[in-house]
């Protein structure tokens, strides 16, 4: 096993040898065909990660358009219809194009190595689940250039905005969501089959690394709710083009029912985007505290209970639709209940650090930022869960602040932490800690300048998804926009760092972090294309 994983930049130099050519016949492919036809979990993981980073930059560019327009009150840069397209497509790209594929990429790279498997269980399906994604997003982004523009009804595509009042690009939107859903479902099935069938001898359930556990539970959430999303976009499609009346009151349907079905998917979806993050943090915090993770079993049970509860809270997105009080109370209490298992996790991480020999390399910095800032996002979520208070906060910038704290400083920061943690394993080189610190400090300052003042805007009554605002919000919006531009630019440092790390740098040992645990650190860095062809024995 002398072969190294070749990164895209090294592609042309990449000549890969192997003893077992009959098994791995794709090895001699070079250039673009190697990437198009690959069934190797590491190469597919790399594809996912690059794709998600590209989407992160595209979706981020749309956020820059939004913040530029909101830099001043009044309408100056873009017309309102285009502004609505930007908020819509920004949301769709970040959720389905950036965060979810990034976690799938991490799963592809790490899960087989963490459980001692030679590859994902269904490698050809793995190839499919990645390669249909670029087509989904080509459809979605392409629709922006159509006559009449792309989808402009918000990423939540509430009926009747998406049925009666939407443009012709809605069909493209629906098909692109179908493709994204199929991709996620195939990815999830692959993860489950891999974890259930391919664990190394002795790798019992309660020895699984938490990243594997959280992904297993996430995969079950995915196969439970992505089909419901596929169903609801199909109903939107038939309502709009084929004369059905699922959501049209005139034909006996009900537009509020759209919200019920959508959020039945939508709430588990937000846990799909955060549970793998919990797994990442649970790997990094013990490694840099040089202690075992505190409360492993409780972490597993907490993850499972969050996943279970996520099916019982969807209507907390709909408190203002005129639900009866009893229903509002039910959903309010269930929502508040989620803070218990989440609190268990936060306290476990803190307890892991307690009296640990902590060092502050980039993965740990991002993990610590995650713990603090995700908790802030969790607390604003708790505020939103209170029915009477939600009537004031609903559809304001307070909600925008809340979900950006949990998704940007939560999910995205955990992905950054994971990238720093495993970059030495992926590339065989240590990344530049100096650049990483620049990236971290620029990000952490700008992200708070960007999102924290949004809480105040929301409390003062600034509505979300509107291209103009009342004059009294001007100063804070200017600050927020400056934070936004700074945060966007800071991510280019990360891009530079990753490219630099791929090109060269200090050679990474098999286990670059002395406190790290897990099978992935027993293979050389960079990880060879094929690892664990004979399964390791876990004691």
């Amino acid at each position, binding site marked *: 096993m002398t072969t190294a994983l070749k990164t895209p930049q090294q592609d042309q130099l990449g000549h890969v040898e192997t003893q077992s050519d009959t098994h791995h016949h794709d090895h001699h492919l070079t250039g673009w065909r190697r990437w198009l036809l690959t069934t190797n979990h590491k190469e597919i993981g790399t594809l996912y990660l690059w794709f998600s980073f590209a989407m992160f930059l595209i979706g981020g560019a749309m956020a820059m358009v939004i913040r530029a327009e909101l830099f001043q009150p009044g309408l100056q840069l873009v017309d309102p219809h285009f502004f609505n397209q930007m908020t819509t497509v920004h949301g769709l790209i970040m959720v389905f194009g950036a965060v979810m594929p990034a976690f799938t990429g991490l799963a592809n790279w790490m899960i087989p190595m963490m459980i001692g498997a030679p590859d994902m269980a269904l490698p050809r399906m793995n190839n499919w689940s990645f390669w249909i994604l670029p087509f989904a997003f080509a459809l979605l982004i392409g629709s922006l250039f159509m006559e009449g523009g792309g989808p402009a009804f918000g990423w939540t595509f509430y009926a009747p905005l998406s049925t009666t009042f939407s443009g012709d690009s809605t069909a493209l939107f629906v098909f692109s969501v179908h493709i994204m859903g199929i991709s996620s479902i195939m990815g999830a099935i692959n993860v489950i089959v891999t974890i259930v069938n391919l664990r190394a001898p002795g790798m019992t359930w309660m020895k699984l690394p938490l990243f594997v556990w959280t992904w297993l539970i996430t995969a079950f959430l995915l196969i439970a709710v992505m*089909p*419901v999303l596929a169903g609801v976009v199909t109903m939107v499609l038939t309502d709009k083009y084929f004369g059905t009346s699922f959501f049209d009151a005139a034909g006996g349907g009900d537009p509020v029912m759209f919200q019920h*079905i959508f959020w039945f998917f939508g709430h588990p979806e937000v846990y799909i985007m955060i549970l793998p993050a919990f797994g990442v943090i649970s790997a990094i915090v013990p490694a840099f505290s040089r202690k075992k993770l505190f409360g492993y079993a409780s972490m597993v049970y907490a993850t499972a209970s969050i996943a279970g509860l996520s099916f019982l809270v969807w209507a907390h997105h709909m408190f203002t639709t005129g639900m009866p009080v009893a229903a509002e109370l039910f959903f309010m209490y269930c929502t508040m209940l989620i803070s218990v298992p989440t609190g268990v996790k936060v306290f476990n991480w803190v307890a892991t650090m307690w009296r640990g020999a902590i060092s502050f390399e980039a993965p740990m910095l991002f993990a610590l930022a995650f713990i603090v800032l995700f908790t802030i996002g969790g607390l604003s979520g708790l505020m939103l869960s209170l029915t009477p208070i939600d009537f004031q906060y609903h559809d304001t910038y307070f909600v925008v602040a809340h979900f950006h704290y949990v998704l940007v400083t939560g999910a995205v920061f955990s992905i950054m932490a994971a990238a720093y943690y495993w970059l030495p394993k992926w590339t065989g080189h240590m990344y530049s800690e100096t650049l990483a610190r620049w990236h971290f400090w620029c990000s952490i300052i700008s992200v708070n300048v960007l999102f924290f003042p949004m809480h105040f805007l929301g409390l003062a009554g600034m509505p979300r998804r509107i291209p103009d605002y009342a004059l009294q919000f001007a100063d804070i919006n200017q600050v927020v926009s400056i934070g936004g531009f700074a945060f966007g630019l800071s991510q280019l440092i990360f891009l530079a760092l990753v490219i630099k790390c791929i090109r060269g740098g200090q050679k990474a040992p098999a286990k670059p972090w002395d406190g790290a645990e897990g099978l992935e650190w027993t293979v050389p860095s960079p990880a060879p294309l094929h690892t664990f062809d004979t399964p390791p024995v876990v004691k």
Partner: protein
Amino acid sequence: MNAPQSQPAQHGRLAARLLLVVVGMFGFGFALVPLYDVFCDITGINGKTSQEVAALSTGVDESRTVTVEFVTYVRGDMPWEFKPVTERIQVHPGETHQVAFLARNRSGESTVGQAIPSVSPGTGALYFSKIECFCFNNQPLAAGEEAEMGLVFYVDPELPESIRTLTLSYTLYNITEQAMGRG
């Protein structure tokens, strides 16, 4: 504990089972539509009144009065004027009343309208019983035609004590295209 490093056949079996779950959940998404209607029918929480003719009232509860208000909305693309003749009346639960709504087609073309009722508070919808209503059918009006549309109703004496006012709103939709389509 499964035997690790198992054969691809086993992968296929598990993948097939998971695929079955996926298909099931896709079906469940659509099953939510009738489930939602049944749930709302039983609990009446979404303010939809029954579109069936109610049985005649059996007894009148003269010990209390309920205010019933009537409001109308006309959807943007509907060229009609549509107003309640009576805006509010006081009724005893169980007492049968007749009220009228005035509709006038202001356009130069015959149009078909459909009025969709909704009761607020939503939990009162179950107790709003209609013996006769123009909203049970669609309403065609020729160009410039005017019509008085009747509603015969009573409030069920079972109405919870906490509800003192019921507001019945009608939203008028233009369904000319669909009605013509059906022939």
